[in-house]
């Protein structure tokens, strides 16, 4: 296997392992742990095996095209620095896996845990190995997502839920910023390939977009590394199982931020902005983290703040922009990972054995856990920066760098003092950790009595890490030296400085600083001891100013209160404002282009006056206004006025030579009126005398509506006048007029358009009708009238009462008398209207008429019988199956259209021919007629279905009241 394949394998192995672990049964604890361990081990071995390939400053690289046009490629790239980071990830990953197997309790669904852990390992490796900025961003966010799952692993615990959500929100947001920053870097560098970007450092720093890019990248890095002011998520993430804390929150994920800063160091660092931004964040974090750590009562809380502080240290180092500082930063990344991971594991053991992590309850554990205590003491010493341990070395390098001058500024000058103070704080909290937990009187109120040493395998990871601390601390050059060098050269390249990893550099200023810090820290601890033994969790002054609370409050305020207010304010759930907006915008949409385009309407022309036409419109206008005026209280009046307006519309169509339209509109008018009347029965009674009070805002609203209405009216007037007086364009209509007879075979051009030129529209239109009819039917099947409409209409009650009161009359006599003569006439009209419908149908192609008009007429014929005799009577005699009509109509129309395929023509190509029939002569036969037949059938079915379904509601209500069976609803 060559190096490239190994690289690919290294990245995919954890993901495959994660997938496999997810498939394991919940009870398969050992299998899951073994799987995780083996995968981590294999990854570690592979990483180690790749060392020769990167040792000489070489780079292992493998790339697949993914979205080549956008320069997003799946490029993996391992250099010395990535290698070192990968070692960290896999190595500590292995140890954590071993540790976790013993740590997790029997109730936990362990396979899920290991699945997440392995996925995290893969994502982390992805960050380390990405050779493409976007790919890096992808793995970056993946770590956020997986860490969310890991922190929330014990999700029955509210703290875990909150902590995980906060971690995801903060780091996810940071990741999104990072993405934009990386996009900008790619924009400047001309591509997202890491090598390309790193090579374009000078161009990047000189670019006007450098600052925004830097800020955005820093947002990503600082949130991930829990730097001030984004640090607060990390302590809350301590709700995670301890292995997670050890792995994510000390060794790896939080390192991703500083890893990125190091990774982009060649491209971004060295500027004034970099110094200030990174430096301020770093020093603030360094100091505050250390200060906060002192006052934590939770073991893991202490470690978390300590981690924050140490990450601040690394950040501060990186801010300095000097290569030596970068070396120190890289070195401290490694060192911190080793001692902090071991400390977390030790804390986990303590928690595991005693059942608490509260330092106020813990005491004198040395006698129960001597080995663990020893290990923890060594690791804490490393954390405190005690000589002969690895922490000391990198801290000395840090101190040395703070003394140097980098950018001549206040911050620069203050740095040595800040560093020393932070060092002292580190000593204090390290000391406190050890002293409080392991020394003093035996504990009294532990949740678990009798703590004892954990199984050896659980301790083994700590032992190994502490051993590493010692080795590196004592013989740094021999142990970590070459690896560190490989890493450093990978980052700094030719800028790699001379540095020495010796334990003893002579008695110099940094050493003095260290000594001062040790002494001051010890002193501080002694001073604070009493107070710390009993104080509340959190530092004085800041105790109530918890970042987490602020964050939560802001989140709730912004994403809930403000959002809800804004949603309510900028939106509405009421219909009227929506329609108001729609009509107003419709008006504006037409108005703005005309106004700003400088449209001049033609002067009004009073030519061609037509007295009768004007009178027709006078009536039309009167009716429209009347309908608008009456619609609230006098519904029937409004309906008649509406009918008047419709009638005038029909007359207009006739006046302007459009008989087809008049015909159709007239027929539709009739049906619509009946439909609305059918519905009117179910609307509430309304009385003008009641609820007629309108307050001021109501009046204002009306005024606004009136304004909109008038504006729309005037707008439509002007628009229609403008377009009507426009010179006629060279329209497609001419083609239709020319071809309608010669090629369409009909003299009624409108109808030829409907059934031939644009038959497809007609097909769609009848489909709409069909759909609506079916919907109406479906909806009415579940119709429930309002309580105040259920009763028999008042008129019927009075008339029935009248019949009841008289012995000579049977119930229903009144209505029978009422309809006696009309029903006879309406029955006579039945065949007449059918014949008339046939007439309309037949003449459609040459003269006004057609399938639609015929269909409506036919439907009216049926409707009339319902009107005359009532639903029961009509259905006793006429078995109309409207749904069948609809289906058959649709199929006929479609089949006619498809018939043209038989002649090799496109859908709906018509075919007309005259057939010679003996005696009768030539008879025109056109496929368009068949199509029209489909239209006819469908229209009959749909119209009847709607009318009848509506009419049936009355019967349904009565059926509810009386169990009398009724033959109905056959569709």
């Amino acid at each position, binding site marked *: 296997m060559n190096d490239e394949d190994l690289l690919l394998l290294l990245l995919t192995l954890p993901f495959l392992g994660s997938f496999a672990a997810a498939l394991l049964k919940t009870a398969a604890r050992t299998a899951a742990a073994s799987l995780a361990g083996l995968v981590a081990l294999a990854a570690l071995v592979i990483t180690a095996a790749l060392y020769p390939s990167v040792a000489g400053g070489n780079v292992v690289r493998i790339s697949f095209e993914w*979205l*080549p*046009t956008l320069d997003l490629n799946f490029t993996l790239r391992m250099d010395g620095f990535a290698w070192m980071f990968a070692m960290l990830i896999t190595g500590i990953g292995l140890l954590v896996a071993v540790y976790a197997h013993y740590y997790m309790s029997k109730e936990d669904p362990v396979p899920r845990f290991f699945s997440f852990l392995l996925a995290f390992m893969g994502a982390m490796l992805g960050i380390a190995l990405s050779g493409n900025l976007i790919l890096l*961003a992808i793995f970056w966010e993946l770590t956020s997502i997986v860490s969310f799952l890991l922190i929330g692993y014990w*999700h029955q615990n509210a703290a875990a*839920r909150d902590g995980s*959500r906060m971690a*995801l*929100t903060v780091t*996810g947001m940071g990741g*999104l910023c990072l*993405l*934009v920053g990386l996009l900008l870097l*790619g*924009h400047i560098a001309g591509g997202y390939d890491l090598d390309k970007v790193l090579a374009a450092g000078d161009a990047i720093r000189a670019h006007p977009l450098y600052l925004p890019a830097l800020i955005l990248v820093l947002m990503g890095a600082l949130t991930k590394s829990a730097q001030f002011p984004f640090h607060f998520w990390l302590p809350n993430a301590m709700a995670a199982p301890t292995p997670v804390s050890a792995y994510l929150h000390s060794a790896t994920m939080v390192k991703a931020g500083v890893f990125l800063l190091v990774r982009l160091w060649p491209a971004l660092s060295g500027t004034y902005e970099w110094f200030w931004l990174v430096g301020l964040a770093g020093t603030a974090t360094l100091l505050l983290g250390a200060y906060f750590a002192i006052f934590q009562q939770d073991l893991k809380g202490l470690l978390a703040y300590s981690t924050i502080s140490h990450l601040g240290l690394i950040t501060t180092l990186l801010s300095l922009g000097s290569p030596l500082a970068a070396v120190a930063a890289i070195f401290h990344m490694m060192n911190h990972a080793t001692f902090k991971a071991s400390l977390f594991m030790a804390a986990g053991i303590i928690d595991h054995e005693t059942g608490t992590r509260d330092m106020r309850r813990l005491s004198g554990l040395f006698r129960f856990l001597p080995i663990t205590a020893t290990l923890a003491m060594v690791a804490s010493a490393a954390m405190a920066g005690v000589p002969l341990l690895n922490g000391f070395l990198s801290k000395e390098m840090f101190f040395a760098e703070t003394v140097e001058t980098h950018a001549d500024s206040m911050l620069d000058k203050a740095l040595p003092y800040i560093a020393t103070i932070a060092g002292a704080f580190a000593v204090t909290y390290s000391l406190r950790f050890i002293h409080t937990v392991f020394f003093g009187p035996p504990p009294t109120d532990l949740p678990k009595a009798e703590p004892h040493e954990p199984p050896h395998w659980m301790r083994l990871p700590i032992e190994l890490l502490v051993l590493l601390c010692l080795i590196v601390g004592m013989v740094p050059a021999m142990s970590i030296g070459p690896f560190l060098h490989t890493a450093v050269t990978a980052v700094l390249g030719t800028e790699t400085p001379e540095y020495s990893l010796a334990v003893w550099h002579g008695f110099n200023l940094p050493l003095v600083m260290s000594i001062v810090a040790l002494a001051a820290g010890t002193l501080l601890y002694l001073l604070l001891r009493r107070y710390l033994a009993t104080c509340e969790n959190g530092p004085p002054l800041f105790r109530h100013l918890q970042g987490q609370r602020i964050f939560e409050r802001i989140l709730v305020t912004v994403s809930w209160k403000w*959002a809800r207010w804004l949603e309510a304010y900028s939106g509405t*759930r009421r219909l009227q404002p*929506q*329609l108001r907006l*729609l*009509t107003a*915008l*419709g008006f504006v*949409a*037409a108005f703005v*282009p*005309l106004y700003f385009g400088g*449209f001049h309407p033609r002067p009004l022309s009073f030519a061609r006056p037509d007295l009768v036409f004007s009178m027709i419109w006078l009536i039309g206008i009167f009716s429209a206004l009347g309908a608008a005026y009456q619609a609230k209280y006098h519904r029937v009046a409004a309906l008649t006025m509406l009918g008047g307006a419709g009638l005038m519309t029909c007359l207009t169509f006739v006046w302007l030579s459009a008989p087809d339209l008049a015909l159709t509109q007239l027929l539709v008018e009739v049906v619509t009126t009946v439909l609305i009347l059918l519905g009117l029965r179910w609307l509430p009674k309304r009385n003008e005398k009641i609820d007629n009070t309108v307050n001021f805002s109501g009046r204002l609203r009306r005024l606004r509506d009136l304004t909109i209405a008038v504006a729309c009216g005037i707008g439509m007037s002007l*628009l229609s006048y403008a*377009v009507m007086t426009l010179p*006629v*364009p060279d*329209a*497609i209509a001419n*083609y239709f007029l020319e*071809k309608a007879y010669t090629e369409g*075979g009909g003299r009624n051009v409108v109808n030829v358009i409907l059934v031939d*030129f*644009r*038959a*497809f*529209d007609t097909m*769609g*239109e009848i*489909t709409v009708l069909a*759909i609506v009819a*079916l*919907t109406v*039917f479906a909806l009415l099947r*579940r119709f429930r009238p309002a309580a105040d409409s259920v009763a028999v209409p008042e008129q019927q009650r009075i008339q029935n009462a009248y019949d009841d009161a008289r012995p000579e009359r049977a119930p229903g006599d009144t209505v029978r008398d009422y309809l006696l003569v009309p029903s006879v006439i309406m029955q006579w009209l039945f065949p007449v209207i059918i014949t008339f419908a046939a007439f309309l149908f037949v003449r459609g192609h040459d003269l006004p008429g057609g399938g639609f008009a015929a269909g409506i007429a036919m439907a009216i014929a049926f409707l009339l019988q319902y009107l005359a005799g009532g639903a029961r009577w009509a259905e006793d005699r006429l078995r109309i199956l409207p*749904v069948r009509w609809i*289906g058959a109509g*649709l199929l006929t129309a479609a089949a006619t259209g*498809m018939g043209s*395929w038989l002649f*090799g*023509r*496109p*859908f709906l190509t018509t075919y*007309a021919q005259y057939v010679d029939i003996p005696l009768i002569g030539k008879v025109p036969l056109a496929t368009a007629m068949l199509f029209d037949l489909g239209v006819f059938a469908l229209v009959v079915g749909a119209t009847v279905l709607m009318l009848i379904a509506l009419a049936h509601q009355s019967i349904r209500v009565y059926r509810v009241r009386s169990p009398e069976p009724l033959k109905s609803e056959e569709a």
Partner: protein
Amino acid sequence: MSFWSEHLVIAPILIPLVVGAILVLLDEKRRVAKSMISVLSTLALLVVAVQIMRYVSAVHAPGASVTAVYMLGNWPAPFGIVLVADRLSAMMLVLTALLALASLIFSLARWHKAGPHFHTLFQLLLMGLNGAFLTGDLFNLFVFFEVMLAASYGLLLHGSGPARVKAGLHYIAVNLAAALLFLIGVSLIYGITGTLNMADLAARIPELPHENRILLEAGCAVLGVAFLVKAGMWPLNFWLPPAYTAAAAPVAAIFAVMSKLGVYVIMRLSLLLFGDQAQESAGFGFDVLLYGGMITMAFGAVGVVASQALGRLAGYSVLVSSGTMLAAVGWGSTGVTAGALFYMVSSTLTIAAFFLLIELVERGQDAGANVLAVTMEAYGDADEEEEDDEVGVAMPGTLAALGICFGMCGILLAGLPPLSGFIAKFAMMSSMFNPAGLGSDLAIRPSAWWLVALIILSGLSALIAMTRAGIRTFWASIEGTVPRVLVMEMAPVILLLFLTVMLTLEGGSVMAYLEETARNLHVPQSYMNDVMSAQPIKPQEGGQP
């Protein structure tokens, strides 16, 4: 072309029409037969759509795209109605078919029994959608819009109940008013240019005299308002969240593509009519789309975080998605359009999956009791014979599967890596920052910052809302109540999410397709030529009186 491939273009309209008609004729009690026919029809649609896509994306000559033109009634453009299949419409067809398949299968578990004629309405909705995607004629577009809307009214009301009826009333009222605007716009355009064919219209616009041109612009603006209602642009979109929330899950899922129809039309018409070739009118309305889209994104994002119910959250996600698309269209560059198309595919699949998922998730939840009540009402009616005897078994792993799907939806909605939501946002943002491609240091337009910020913030809002909802749903509740879910219901969700995974993995080839699509959209000459030069099969014969 063979006989059948020649008529392939109309198949996406005819198959659902004929099947819908046949289903009408089948008795309501023959549910199995109806379901089978419906599923087969949808499968056929998928096959046809893929075939069309393969046909139009086949490279016959370098740089030349293929546009399939189908002349209905054998009348040439601009006189007759033509159907035009190009890369964009083909893509929409495939997307629609996929969504339809998922929704349909999902509905077979229970929803299709909640009222009569479900399958017919469903098929006719597909007919409307496909027709609107395919047609090259403005008025025919209106007709198919209406077909689609009518079916959507029916489906939205499917199952009845107060919530649906209330939302339906608003939905219908707003859309009826919008339809009137549509008519005004179309007729105005016809009155000025004398044509209804889109390609012909595009050719006529540059030649219009000034007065007529601004009238035409007014017409197009009115038309645009109608489309924007459908596309859900603020402030015309308040009907959308309630409607989508109230709809039955499979209906809401297929609705996810419906709001994209508005976007599709706006994209197609804006670029065709007001692209660079439109001369004086070039770029008309683009700013409105850009800023309107941006406001819509913001509104959607606010709505997403302000939503407590999952349904509303999903509804607002639709708005975010629409706003993003509109803004991207208004941006007006090939790269962003390509990215936006990718985003459209991804977000449509996501939202559809999410709508389906919501029902399953809420089934096990106390908080979803109101939804359940609606469901009960839908089934509890007297004329339903079968009862809950087959409504899902509590399977082990159900919760895990639901959780994974939910997580994926969250990741997709937030645009987080590694799924397609991220790729889409990345593609758009990268193209915004690099208008002339990576490497050329062309200045970044100021609006790019706003747009990128909104993309990020809307993602963040989705992230916040989805974690909030996810935690409440999966973590805060006791695991004992495992929702009873059928495999038949789970499979469509998984299918849709699997498609997003495929979209991610195959991002390169998808992007290549979409980039070509975007190029064709931005330089529509070949579209116009193909439509206008298509010849009838033979001169008409017969028909002589």
